[in-house]
């Protein structure tokens, strides 16, 4: 056997376990998820018949009904993305720029901002639940100092969604800051010097130098955080009283709907899988748009 063929055999040998793993645990189940979404799938039932896209028909009917909980879940999820993502990115960019200007203690601040990110979402959610308590939670104690009446936060359907958003923004901020900071440090100092020589003020430098050169980082984080907000689950379960995305479905999300339909008492996995297919299509579209955008950037 030639040396070259021997090496090819080694390559196949090395890949045997990993490729089997990816096919059995990733590719197979992906196809299986599509299959489940086309069936009346109760894992306890002996018969799991195909049902002529009934799960998708039900999904679209539920999405058209303004009072349906699935419709509410999609609405809330888009709200989380539209409020949370821009908030997280703008605060993150501000703090990254501040970190980039200071000369001392940068490491200390970075570590502190990163702490919530390495903490489990469950612990974070329960700590914030106690901060939000109506009677003796820290936030109401602070509001009281300023003479503001006690707020119900998570228990008030009008305040619950922003309250949950705040927790998620807070927890992921450290990650956004670190990525922005890495992007900022990649911008050569000469660009700033040239702008200053030309007499550009701070705002001009920010909009004409920093932002354009930071564009790849910005697009990357925009896509990543959008997807993260689309997949929100652990925080909502642990911040709502019955773990159900309440009060009155005001904080429920797409993934929480999947979970409750598929693993709740109804065990309606077909419908749950149909929702995940929808989520997959949305995430796929965003990723493809990102690829187009980043490919264009290479040109200039």
């Amino acid at each position, binding site marked *: 056997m030639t040396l070259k063929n021997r*090496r*090819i055999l080694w*390559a196949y040998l*090395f890949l045997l376990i*990993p490729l089997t*793993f*990816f096919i059995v*645990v*990733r590719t197979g*189940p992906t196809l299986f998820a599509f299959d*489940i979404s086309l069936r009346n799938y109760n*894992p306890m039932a002996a018969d799991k018949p195909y049902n002529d896209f009934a799960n998708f028909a039900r999904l679209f009917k539920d999405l058209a009904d303004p009072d349906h909980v699935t419709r509410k879940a999609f609405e809330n999820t888009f709200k989380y993305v539209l409020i949370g993502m821009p908030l997280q990115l703008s605060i993150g960019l501000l*703090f990254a720029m*501040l970190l980039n*200007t*200071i*000369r001392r*203690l940068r490491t200390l*601040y970075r*570590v*502190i*901002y*990163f*702490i*919530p990110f*390495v*903490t*489990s*979402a*469950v*612990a*974070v959610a*329960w*700590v914030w639940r*106690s*901060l939000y308590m109506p009677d*003796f939670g*820290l936030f109401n*104690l602070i509001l*009281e100092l300023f003479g503001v009446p006690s707020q119900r936060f998570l228990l008030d359907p009008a305040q619950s969604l922003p309250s949950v958003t705040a927790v998620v923004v*807070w927890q992921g901020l*450290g*990650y956004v800051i*670190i*990525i922005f900071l*890495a992007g900022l440090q990649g911008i050569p100092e000469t660009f700033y010097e040239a702008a200053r020589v030309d007499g550009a003020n701070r705002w001009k430098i920010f909009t004409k130098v920093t932002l354009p050169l930071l564009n790849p980082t910005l697009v*990357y984080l925009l896509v*990543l955080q959008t997807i993260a907000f689309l*997949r929100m*689950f652990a925080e909502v379960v642990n911040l709502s009283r019955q*773990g159900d995305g309440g009060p009155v479905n005001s904080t429920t999300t797409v*993934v929480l709907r*999947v*979970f409750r339909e*598929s693993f709740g008492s109804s065990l309606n996995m077909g419908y*749950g*899988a149909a929702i*995940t297919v929808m*989520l997959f299509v949305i*995430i796929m579209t965003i990723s493809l748009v990102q690829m187009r955008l980043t490919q264009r950037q290479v040109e200039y």
Partner: protein
Amino acid sequence: MDLTYSPPRRRGLPTPQIVAYAILTLGALAMVTPFIWMVATSFKSPGEILQPRFLPEDPTGDNYTQVLTRTLFPQWYLNSLVAAAISTASVGFFDSLTGYVFSKFEFPGKRIAFILVLATLMVPTEMLVIPWYVMAQQTSLVDTTLGIVFPGLITATGVFLMRQAFKSVPDELLDAARIDGMNEFGIFSTVAWPLVMPSVAAICIFNFLGNWNAYIWPLIVTSKRATMTLPIGLAFFSSEAGSAWNLIMAGATLSTVPLLTVFVFLQRQIIQGVALTGMKS
């Protein structure tokens, strides 16, 4: 007109720096205060949590004794540790090996194999939990350690990062070892692998963190209290505890502080790892 050059004032910090430090410190306070509140509440007596006060006046360790003796916290700790250790060891080895093959070998079908691995990155975990559960049920993996860890034994992200890392290993070095008659596995494990250890360490740390904090899959695949991992146990215990915030915060402290201590020691590697690769647990 005075034409002599006068250097800028150098006494104290310039104003923009002071403003930057002020805002950064406020931000740091916002990051840390919830944790201080958590620890402070965990030392309060049941009566004291009903008083408008930040710090406990009469700190007590009772909450910790109760949480550790009356719940399965020690068991949940162990379960999380075992699950995270198994998956991290597997990821450290198999992600390296797979990345190595994609980086250093040429063979028919390489492109297809690589696309097969990369394509799995497109599919969110949430879409796979239903099929995984059905599979786990059919193979009696529900409520077992293998059931908890199997989806994460090899990761596409890790394979991709290791493929990049192995590109920095010169081919000449591997060829030299081949001429010495070393077999391919020996070359991988004793020549190439040691050279990319910083990358291996980074993916291992991240994988450990990700597994330690994992929620949706362990929640689905465990139903018995004895098999729960720490986040699932903490959530279960907290929702049972009603408004005993002192106990809940003791549980939260117990589940976060050890990991945070490790983080502070490894912070340089972790933060640099994130900055370089954008890795996310």
